[in-house]
């Protein structure tokens, strides 16, 4: 894989991440925060996380066996574990482990 493209991709990620963390401090040091900023910061994350979670299922073949069953089962276990214990590590490890087991059985 082209090292330069990887380096450029990481640089872009560094800049985008740093922007979300530093912008509030750079822009609103001694200025009133305009209303659309808390709106975007508040309602952006639920929207983008919905899209990204669905995006994770984009390569599932729903028309052929097993019709996305391992993905759905593992996502359901992740959600149930998280609603039950609210332990991020447990939820992620549990869901991923189930998925890794299921695709080997299929």
């Amino acid at each position: 894989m082209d090292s330069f493209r990887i380096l450029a991709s990481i640089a872009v990620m560094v800049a985008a991440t740093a922007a979300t963390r530093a912008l509030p401090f750079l822009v609103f040091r001694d200025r009133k925060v305009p209303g659309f900023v808390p709106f975007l910061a508040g309602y952006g994350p639920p929207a983008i996380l919905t899209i990204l979670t669905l995006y994770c299922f984009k390569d599932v073949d729903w028309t052929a066996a097993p019709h996305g069953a391992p993905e759905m089962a593992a996502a359901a276990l992740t959600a149930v574990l998280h609603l039950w214990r609210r332990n991020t590590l447990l939820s992620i490890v549990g869901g991923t482990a189930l998925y890794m087991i299921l695709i080997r059985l299929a």
Partner: protein
Amino acid sequence: MESTDHDDSPRTRGSAPGAALRAALPATFPVFLGYTTIGAAFGLLLASSGLPLWAAPAMSIFVYAGAAQFMGVGLIASGAGLAEIAAATFLLNLRHMVYGLSFLETYSRAGARKPYLVLTLTDETYALLSTVAAPPGIDPDRFRFWVSALNQSYWFLGTLAGTLAGGLAAFDTRGLEFSLTALFTVLLIEQTRKVRSPLPYLASGACAVGAYLALGPSRMLLPAIGAAGVLLFALRGRLEARG
């Protein structure tokens, strides 16, 4: 809460650097468990993705945003463009802006440590710093610095261990990529505790499904994000009226 935040008395000003570090160590123990494990999963995933191994520690030092790093491995490995990577990373990390906005005052007197504190404000560091205060007699800025630095060191150590393990031994890592789906599922559930209105979830979900059906899996991401952004601002009046 703010009253204890900036204790500038000579007593706390002069507290030894070691004391702040010793106070931060037990406070960060839960993050130690989480970051070393998830960091190791990230390292393993990157090593099995075909990306060069140096990319893992480089991302954990300079990007230092777990969900974005997992997503980044997938996007880079699948040949996504820079604009797509930039937009997805920025929007995924938009929630960090909320943390920054609520810490404007808290970090205002952190001095030379401020840039590091600002750039390492992850989900877990924010959660910890907004709930755990520095013990009496410990300089709160120094305490916050050590909490942030320890958390990043855990993330880095986990990444290194996972990358080395994945690079040295040939693990059967098929399915490990599901950790990203699981991570997003967890973050989404956490979001529903903060934003209770179903509207943003339904609107953006419809955009994602629509883009998938209209454009296919490889070209759906940016249009879905764009459409959701437009829809969100169109619904702004209704969302803000509900509170």
